[in-house]
């Protein structure tokens, strides 16, 4: 597998406080990579730096082998072809389900727009909600719409910022299954940010733990969290 995302010495300060201090990371294509850590440790900032929504103070970002962020180069987020699912989902309140998908797809394809919208709707099981606005959707439906928007983006990189944090147990399970199914089907590279151990264990095959702005551990989640899981079982 090739490296699809590579971070070199990423540093970021907010109001004089260093949030990320020299992060180095390589993520392979098709990997389900988790970023784990306590609140405020810089997980979301790191994800936003990969997407180009935030500029690091120092360091380099490579996507698909190309340098996209450095002191000299900065490829804007819209040119990175990345799908991002935000923690609050960031669904546009004034647009219907159809308009959400249309907005994204019209940038990608010219023909068969209607067919493609139907295809995505089928995947996310929202065919009956074509003209519904986000406020008319349930929590799970909103989640599926956010996933559908990300699929419509047709990117091989999915960045997910605690996307399931607001869902109940059953919805979480359903969404995890959907995401895993999609990852397999489209051979996606997923970078998954969470602070819930079990969520990250279920979703990722490799994780990095961020502590004090640095990666303290990296590896398979079950191995890294063996002790915690054992304690919980006892």
């Amino acid at each position, binding site marked *: 597998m090739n490296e699809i995302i590579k971070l070199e010495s990423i540093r970021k300060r907010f109001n004089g406080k260093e949030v990320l201090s020299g992060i180095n990371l390589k993520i392979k294509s098709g990997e389900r990579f988790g970023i784990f850590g306590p609140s405020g440790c810089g997980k979301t900032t790191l994800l*936003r730096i990969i*997407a180009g*929504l935030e500029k690091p103070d120092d360091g380099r970002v490579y996507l698909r082998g190309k340098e996209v962020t450095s002191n000299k180069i900065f490829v*804007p*987020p*819209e040119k*990175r072809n*990345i*799908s*991002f699912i*935000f*923690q*609050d989902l*960031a*669904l*546009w*309140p*004034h*647009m219907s389900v159809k308009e959400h998908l249309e*907005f*994204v797809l*019209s*940038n990608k394809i010219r023909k068969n727009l209607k067919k493609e919208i139907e295809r995505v709707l089928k995947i996310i099981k929202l065919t009956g909600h074509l003209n519904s606005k986000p*406020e008319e959707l349930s929590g799970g439906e909103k989640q599926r719409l956010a996933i559908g*928007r990300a699929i*419509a*983006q047709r990117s091989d990189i999915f960045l997910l910022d605690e996307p399931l944090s607001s869902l109940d147990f059953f919805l979480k399970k359903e969404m995890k299954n959907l995401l895993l199914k999609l990852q397999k089907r489209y051979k996606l590279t997923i970078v998954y940010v969470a602070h819930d151990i079990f969520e990250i264990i279920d979703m990722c095959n490799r994780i990095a733990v961020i502590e004090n702005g640095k990666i303290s551990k990296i590896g398979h989640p079950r191995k890294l969290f063996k002790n915690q899981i054992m304690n919980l079982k006892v």
Partner: protein
Amino acid sequence: MYKKLFNYFIYFLLFTLIFLPIIYLFVSIFFPNLKLTNLYSLWNYIIFSFDSRLISIFSKTLLVGFSVSIISGIVGLVLAIILECSNLSYRNFFKFLLFIPFLIPPYLLTFSWLAFLGKRGTFVNITFPNLPLNIYSPLTVVVLLSLSFYPISMFIISLGLKNMDRNLIDAGRLSNSKKLIRKVVIPLVKPHFLISCFFVFVLSISEYVVPSFLRVNVYPAEIFAQLAAFYNLRRAIVYSLPLIALALFVSGLLFLYFRKKSFVTLSTYYREKKEFIRLEKHHKALAYFFILLLLSLSLLVPASMIIIESELSFFNAVVFAKESILNSLLTASLGATLITLLGFFTYYFLKDNNLLMLIIAFPLAIASPVIGTSLINFYNNLSLPIYGTILIVLLGYLLRFLPFSIFIFAAFFPQISSTIEESARLCSPNFFKTIYKIILPLNKGGFLSSFIIIFIFCLGEIGVTQMVSPPGFQTLPIRIETLMHYGNYSYVASLSLFLLLFIFFFYILYWLVYRKHE
């Protein structure tokens, strides 16, 4: 308990100080002895009053108001997007400059443009004496009012942009950056655009000083003529009915629109930078040209003309009008204090009620002579020592400028206030302590901003002041207007310059407060 009582007290104050004089005026004019049997003759009187000439003037006024609101709205939208969301340099400096024209009373702007392009104007006489230029037209009224009011649209739409959830924009950037502005940003600020258009429309249709300078007969001027020339109070009130009905109708439409938009809020404390529009070199040049053109038309030319027209008689004029200057300072500072306090509590108690907020804004639609008349009519019949004192001037300011203070608090009031207040109430059940120790300190930026902006407005107010001023009491704008009638243009320009410098000084203070708060 205290909170509820105080809430009712604020309702009572709003009703008594703002709505009661207006309601009393209408009732006393139409139902002199509170007899409803006069309805038929009243209806005939109303029908009889509106002849084809008046309807044509009314239509012209509406057209002017509509054009001004649309032009200001579009200019404000473009400026807000450029200044809030792009990578243009010196954006804060431009924001600072571009808001100034709103603080300059429109009659000063008109005076300076008349000095530039009018019959005795510098530009026409010196540069192009044979230029067939007629600036005495409704088109000039539209242009000059748009130059005065575009900053308010810019300000309101900027608030909308600042308040917008950053993730919504980021999601749009990642999905389809080409359609981001058209499909995401503009629809999300559409409510703010409409509110700004409403404000500008209401301000434009009740403006009569600028059209009268430009010899354009507009509807509020007809109202003023009925009051000042014919002393026909009843007809003036009848004439003002359509303006009020229109303002209520438009505010009703807005209310219905906002009821369905749960995501719309005017309050903002979320001031993250959103530089998501990367302007290329030629786009930047175009943006600079647009901004500089606006600044030249709304600031540079007027300020230069006022300086030229003053003919170095600045100090003589200031000494000549020192009493009026002191009167202006006194009334403006007292007015700003009163309005700021009431504006704060009004916003605090009404912030969740869009309908009441719009009703509070409705006196903006009433022409200032009618406001003045309603105050005289109401307080003259009361045995309170208000009529004939400067208190009545302050009440006039309150009627005119309270909506602006409320609006400033809407911009400054922290969104977190509900939980902060709740936690404070859990610690101390004393409502006034919560207000004094928690809510007031968190809003000190809003207080200072409201005080300074309202002070500036009061300083330039003329419409109500000239109706209600006690005998022998003149404020600076009234002195300027009197001198203008006598044709003493150098003194007019000198005092206008003094007023401008004063406004500018306070505006810098406001900006410093705003920046610190940000």
